[in-house]
């Protein structure tokens, strides 16, 4: 992501004090713990012009759910509201802020794109990553039938209900295999970790890659 952004002329900073957006705690019902982590996030990124996030899920947590967790806390709500418009999911930043569709990448092979749930349904990101992929030289995008179906990760869901989560991934992977793609691309690493884990367990010759990795390829 850094390479792509720098290629486009942006100065990238990586605040070393950054940790997590707090979503794992929020999604597990621990709102108080999520609030503590969220406050830390807001502190760390306080001065940035743009916060570019390589994850639809984390982006949505910050832009959509900080609102929920700081309900009743006017000061923090204001701080969350000030942050939200500066937080950008990576692909959306490229297209809407940097106005770059072709970032000069080259990747030889057939890929298929996995719509991660929070990017798709909370951030309404659907065509953007595909437009970026379409400009990558040497790349063929084969759509899978179940592109919009959940990979089954779901944070702690994946360890609370391993069989269901694993089954969901296998259903998704069946759909991936049909595309003959050697690479599955997404904008959320957690989905990719889930899918790669099940792919490896099944011994399939498929690799998962974040969109940023594809766009950084030369």
């Amino acid at each position, binding site marked *: 992501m850094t390479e792509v952004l720098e290629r486009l002329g942006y100065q990238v900073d990586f605040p070393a004090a950054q940790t997590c957006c707090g979503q794992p705690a929020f999604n597990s019902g621990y709102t108080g713990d999520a609030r503590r982590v969220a406050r830390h996030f807001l502190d760390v990124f306080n001065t940035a012009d743009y916060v570019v996030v390589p994850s639809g899920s984390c982006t949505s947590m910050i832009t959509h759910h900080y609102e929920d967790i700081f309900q009743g806390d006017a000061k923090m709500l204001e701080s969350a509201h000030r942050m939200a418009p500066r937080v950008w999911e990576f692909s959306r930043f490229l297209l809407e802020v940097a106005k770059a569709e072709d970032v000069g990448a080259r990747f030889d092979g057939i890929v298929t794109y996995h719509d991660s749930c929070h990017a798709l349904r909370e951030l309404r990101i659907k065509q953007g990553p595909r437009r970026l992929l379409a400009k990558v030289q040497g790349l063929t995008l084969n759509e899978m039938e179940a592109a919009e179906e959940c990979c089954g990760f779901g944070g702690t869901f994946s360890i609370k209900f391993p069989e269901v989560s694993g*089954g969901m991934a296998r259903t998704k992977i069946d759909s991936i295999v049909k595309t003959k793609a050697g690479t599955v691309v997404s904008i959320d690493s957690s989905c990719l970790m889930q899918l790669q884990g099940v792919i490896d367990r099944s011994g399939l010759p498929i690799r998962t890659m974040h969109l940023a990795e594809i766009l950084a390829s030369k």
Partner: protein
Amino acid sequence: MATIKETVADPRLQLAIYSATQRLIDHRAGAVGFKVFPEYQDLRTLAHDIKKHTIEHLDYYLEQLEANVVAHGGQVIFCEDAEQVTDFVLNLAKQRNARLIVKSKSMTTEEIHFNERLEHHQLEAVETDLGEYILQLAHQRPYHIVAPALHLTRYDVADIFTKSLGVKKEVVIEEQTKIARSVLRDKFLQADIGVTGANFLVADSGAVVVVENEGNARLSSSAPKIHIAVAGIEKLIPRAQDLAVFLNLLGRSATGQPLTVYTSFLSGPRREGEVDGPDEFYLILLDNGRTKLLADPDKRQSLYCIRCGACLNHCPVYRKIGGHNYPWVYSGPIGAIITPQFHGVSKDPWLPFASSLCGACAEVCPVKIEIPKLLLKLRAEVVEAKQREGAGGLERLAFRMFSWMMTHPRVYLMLACIGSALAPITPKIGPLRKWTSQRSLPPLASTSFHKWWAERSSK
């Protein structure tokens, strides 16, 4: 009954669930697309707003409904729970010397175990919806809100018919339907009472609206001398004209039909000069915990549900675990949000967590219930309840450590270093074992991003 693990691992059952739900998904998609139905999204918003308004003025519309039903010669009975419903029906049956009840499909009566309760009093209640009839013979509860026998193949049905009715094995669906029909026709003619549910209760006209595809609800409500409709109080809509919104959404969302085959508008007993209809009409309005849901201004939207089943069909978790693994008759995402509210969050604390929060449910909900948001709220309530009960200490500690670590970056970095060093020799226990039961662990990067960044910046 197959457990979650068994259901996921049973290829036959998985195929039955997947093919049936996929059919419903495809049919719906064909009926709500912008080209065929451009007003769909606007109607969803409108439906949400109408339901919101109705639920917030429930007392007003209930009174209006009652007055109009009575004006048509019917009676309205408010029941707090299952017992009051049974008492009313048993009393009436005794007074009228009734023995046989025919029923059309009704989730509300499933909710209160209507049939079993009457059985104890030698009152026979026969389900007349084909799917429900099959399930009654098999002693199973509905697998799905709209397609109750969705999990059964025609071969399963053949076995059930042979076992319960003594007929020879018949695997052709049309022939199976004939078998059921020959039994049920007699029941319709003999029945003393017909019981139906209701899809909508129209306050301004006092009408009970029932949608169906088989015609059995129309028969149940008109053939016997007495018709009893059982409905939850949330089925109200203010005006007959609102049906234009809801009927358009219900059929399309449920089965992809612009309108179901039968839509019955039932208002009171047969009047003079009318050919059809019962002599007596009763509308049982059931609370059974619904008023509890009114208390929370956010969660009360759960009562907007029109029971179309679209959230079940589109839920990847429902499609894996099936309907019977949900603790109550309402399964899928809607079941996961209403069950804890009806029964208390402590009864099945796992339920709100049985979701990847993918949001497919909310996207297809015709009345725009924010299901993932409510699941999150319920999760927080489960955690609070556990804390009150002194349970779940280990998980609470884990998240406390998580938030402490994530607000102390130095500790976080140090622990991350230690963690990656120890990872290869860490025994696979706890959450790690759960993870590796299904998947491999990701290989660790040779260097952390923090380190890479620091080295890069110092150059």
